[in-house]
């Protein structure tokens, strides 16, 4: 299934590895911060609503 990359195997795979890793990190950080801020805002809104 893996295509024959010849003498450029390391080159091509490292380019794909680095790029996909960076995209994954960006995605994870984005979603994690989104979830954290959403939860924190819910808490604050709840507290402020309760205290009037």
């Amino acid at each position: 299934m893996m295509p024959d990359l010849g003498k450029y195997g390391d080159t091509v795979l490292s380019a794909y590895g680095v790029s996909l890793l960076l995209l994954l990190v960006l995605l994870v950080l984005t979603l994690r911060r989104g979830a954290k801020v959403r939860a924190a805002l819910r808490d604050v809104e709840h507290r402020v609503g309760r205290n009037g």
Partner: protein
Amino acid sequence: MSIWEYANPKKFLRSTERVLPPLWLGSAVLITGGLIWGFFFTPDDYRQGATVKIIYLHVPSALMAINAWFMMLVASLIWVIRRHHVSALAARAAAPVGLVMTLIALLTGAIWGQPMWGTWWAWDPRLTSFLVLFLFYLGYIALWQAIDDPDTAADLTSILCLVGSVFAVLSRYAVNFWNQGLHQGASLSLDKEENVADVFAYPLYVCMAGFILLFIVLVLYRTGTEIRARRMSALLARERMSE
């Protein structure tokens, strides 16, 4: 219905909640499909061998590196002219995405350049202008972090964005402006003689569409996060004042 309705944070959040799931799915399908097509089902180039497969990451990321900055420029101008907070937050939200795209373009370019040019790096007009663009992204993000007052931060980063646009334009047209250096001209052209062969171009179009969609999704999601963070700060400030 006017586009300015989306300057209302509540309306923006409501609308993006609805469109984000299909957009996430679309970008995932396009990027995965395009990369699988390009990596597994395209032949080697007669001169560049298998390294041609790097094009499916290098070109879309470079495209988004430049266009992310232009999107930030438009959002910054809207902030400066109409003072819509959502547009300033959208510019802020786009910067880390543009930074990562620029980094991917620089790294894949270096990895590709090593076997083709015999060097990881050269002070070529396009490479250098891309490096400067990368530094502008870092400076832009740092400036947002450094200033406490959000409106002042939005004003100053808008000016930085305006200045940085010169390098975004240079990154795009450096090869045309200075007809020298190692980097080739545009990979995609309306001129059939200059354009890459169809067998490479079609999966490349799919990857480009995927990256564009991914950028849109990430910016919408991150802008939503920035709006919520801003609301939280406002509520906390109000709570402190009432104590």
